[in-house]
């Protein structure tokens, strides 16, 4: 199924997706933040891509932790520690593994979400990346428990993430830079939720074949 090679591939595709959407994510952030989310993540994932060759043959835990540490030390801002912690926590749970079961995938996303909550002290509904990640995680879990194929389950998860992003348009930000806007943050989608959603899109696309 998903071996370490594939994990590296997925991460490369995430980096590509972020790079393609660098401007879009930045523009979203300009509207309710400080206009750097795409720039930040792109800088970080480009560094990740440079780093990957050094760990590509290692276990998945090491790969994910390396991604996390690289993000922490190159992204900065809010999203650096958050995504960095997410990957680091996920990696810690995959120590030594060279292949992932579907249950591992659930663990990875669960640990990532927990890492983000721990570091950012946010809850769902505060207009952050959690509003994409948590619903996506729940749908993925439900679908897999129901016995859906991974492909279908990831499809539904991506939809849930997309709905989560739509939902962020309707709420006031109470965490992150957009919170300074109060009411004025309504109507805008959260950049972090959007980048998280893109990661689910990549996951889905990568597991279609």
């Amino acid at each position: 199924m998903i071996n370490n090679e594939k994990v590296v591939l997925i991460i490369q595709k995430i980096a590509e997706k972020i790079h393609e959407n660098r401007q879009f994510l930045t523009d979203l952030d300009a509207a309710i933040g400080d206009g750097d989310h795409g720039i930040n993540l792109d800088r970080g994932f480009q560094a990740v891509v440079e780093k990957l060759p050094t760990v590509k043959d290692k276990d998945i835990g090491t790969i994910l932790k390396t991604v996390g540490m690289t993000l922490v030390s190159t992204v900065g801002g809010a999203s650096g520690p958050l995504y960095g912690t997410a990957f680091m926590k996920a990696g810690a749970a995959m120590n030594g593994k060279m292949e992932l079961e579907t249950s591992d995938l659930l663990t990875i996303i669960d640990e990532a979400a927990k890492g983000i909550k721990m570091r950012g002290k946010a809850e769902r509904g505060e207009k952050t990346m959690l509003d994409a990640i948590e619903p996506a995680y729940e749908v993925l879990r439900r679908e897999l428990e129901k016995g859906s194929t991974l492909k279908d389950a990831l499809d539904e998860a991506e939809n849930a993430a997309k709905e989560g992003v739509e939902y962020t348009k309707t709420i006031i930000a109470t965490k992150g830079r957009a919170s300074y806007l109060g009411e004025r943050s309504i109507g805008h989608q959260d950049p972090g939720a959007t980048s998280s959603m893109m990661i689910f899109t990549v996951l889905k696309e990568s597991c279609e074949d």
Partner: protein
Amino acid sequence: MKKLINKPENVEKEMLQGIVKAHGEYVKKLPDFNVLVRANKKENKVALVSGGGSGHEPAHGGFVGEGMLDGAVAGAVFTSPTPDQVFEAIKAVDGGQGVLLIIKNYTGDVMNFEMAAEMAEMEGIKVEKVVVNDDVAVEGSLYTTGRRGVAGTVFVHKIAGALAEKGASLEEVKTVAEKVIANVRTMGMALTPCTVPAAGKPGFELSEQEMEMGIGIHGEPGTHRQAIALADEIVDHMMGKILGDMDLKANDEVAVMINGFGGTPLMELYIVNNHVNDVLTEKGIKIHKTFVGNYMTSIEMAGCSVTVLKLDDETKELLDARANTIAFRV
């Protein structure tokens, strides 16, 4: 985008090199890290580290030196520095008496500096932190991230730095920093936006007739947009917000900072001060010291912030104490 730069991705590095080349008697750069520390490290005192995204020059490297900071960490433009950079700064400046981190209240800054503090503590370095949140434009509440840290941070650097220089303990330096934070309020406004070099276009747009009230120092939207008004009217609005959030009575003493955002002519800052001074004086408030200039900027944004710090005998004496840094000298 019209800028005197080479490659956008190199602005931070070239800027720091330019600072060190100009002011080698004040600061040096840690090799491989975007960190400025004092050219002559002073041992056996509490060390102060601040920093944040770049684009706020002279903050924060301009405040490294005798009587103020020991180290300044420069992130990418408008982006909090990463924990490893902050960690390097902590290690470099620690003189055995512990390190105080002065953080502006942004989610990113708080998280990155916190992670650095965790790393430092694992190495046995005593670290304390204070979070500056002086911007009255933003409604703070327990359930949000609270107010932003803006130009008032410079007063925290100055006063805590003066106490550290005198040999006070980490606990004492932290306490006075918190006292400054509790007593300082700022409000800003912008006439024009600013452009992050890597973004290549302005973070927001303002028409020829508009200004943004309550702007943040990263060009974050403020409280509202309105038609551009007379300087005196703008000052009245800002002072209303600031004084409405402070407990000031006649004969209280304050320090004032009229801070330009980088693209504001000094002429306009002094015109602003002219009325700020009148508003305070009319209320019988005594202005002990006034600072006018670019202290906490937003690249080339035009506009200004007004900061009022309520003083007591301790903070007044520390504000007046000698400071000798690139951008702040008393």
